[in-house]
């Protein structure tokens, strides 16, 4: 991997955080907390646990900023810490999917469209939660968080080839699950 400290706007903050600079730490909260929360919530399907994961991630950042190596972007490192924290919780208890999750944004389209979107969102949420953790992490990082293949593979600590395999298998499983759900819905409406 190459040294990314020159192109990563967060890199200069890490030595300051390691020295106990609270302002530098808070700058990284402003830059990444929302995306880390979205990532954790999509990984776990549970808002409160996702907030705990993000809290753990930033505690690690505050305590271990000195361990960060400039070979990876800071955001990638944060995703890796958050993913590991989420994985710990997934191993402890499999969260349930809460369709009434109040933490989700309602985009506010027309009522009919909203029902269709809600049904699709429920299906996607259920299908995502049914994926093996590694496939889910790959899909969330690349599709929802917009990471490149190189960044997502670094966050998951795997090769780009392995990431692409996870993505392809995950997307195939999602397509199948959503097709099955569509057939179910069509069957229900008859």
């Amino acid at each position, binding site marked *: 991997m190459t040294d990314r400290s020159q192109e990563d706007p967060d890199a200069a903050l890490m030595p300051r955080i390691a020295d106990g600079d609270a302002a530098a730490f808070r700058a990284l909260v402003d830059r990444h907390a929302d995306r880390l929360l979205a990532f954790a919530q999509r990984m776990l399907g549970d808002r409160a646990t996702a907030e705990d994961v993000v809290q753990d991630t930033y505690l690690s950042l505050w305590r271990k900023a000195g361990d960060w190596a400039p070979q990876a972007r800071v955001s990638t490192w944060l995703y890796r810490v958050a993913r590991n924290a989420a994985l710990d919780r997934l191993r402890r208890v499999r969260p349930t999917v809460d369709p009434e999750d109040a933490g989700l944004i309602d985009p506010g389209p027309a009522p009919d469209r909203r029902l269709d979107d809600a049904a699709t969102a429920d299906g996607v949420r259920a299908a995502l939660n049914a994926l093996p953790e590694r496939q889910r992490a790959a899909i969330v990082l690349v599709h929802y968080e917009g990471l490149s293949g190189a960044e997502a593979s670094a966050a998951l600590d795997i090769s780009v080839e392995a990431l692409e395999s996870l*993505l392809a298998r995950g*997307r195939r499983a999602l397509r199948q699950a959503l097709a099955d759900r569509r057939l179910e819905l069509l069957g229900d409406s008859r």
Partner: protein
Amino acid sequence: MTDITRDRVLNLIHAYGGDPARWPGAEREAAVARLSGDPELARAADEARALDLALDALPMPHPSPTLRVRLKDIPESGSGLLDLVAGWIGLWRPAAGLATAAALGVLIGIADPSLPLPGFGTETVSVQSVETADTDTYSLAAASAVGFAPQDTF
């Protein structure tokens, strides 16, 4: 523009979806060119785009202002107590080790008073004094050095 195989373009579609903007930058231009002249690849990209759209139906989770406040408090409060405890443990670890060893020693001594003290054997050694011209001076100095009073006899 680098060359790219048809299989590789298919792999990109299956992994990253139907939007070329998500494909790796180094391969994107060649992959798009290959795609444009291949109806089967184009169909695969359309199917992948349908899945992309379905995935986009999942709403973006709300940010959490209260979480953000809690996170920003971490330097002052979140880890302060834990750091204090960790520092205290680090600072007092040697002393705690010595205290534990001492307490164990006392407990063992209470449990079995017959055990010898460190550096002392269990055998009784009888000392016989030998009268020589300088014995008294030597014996008194030696006795004084180990804490005996001059009136103690050997």
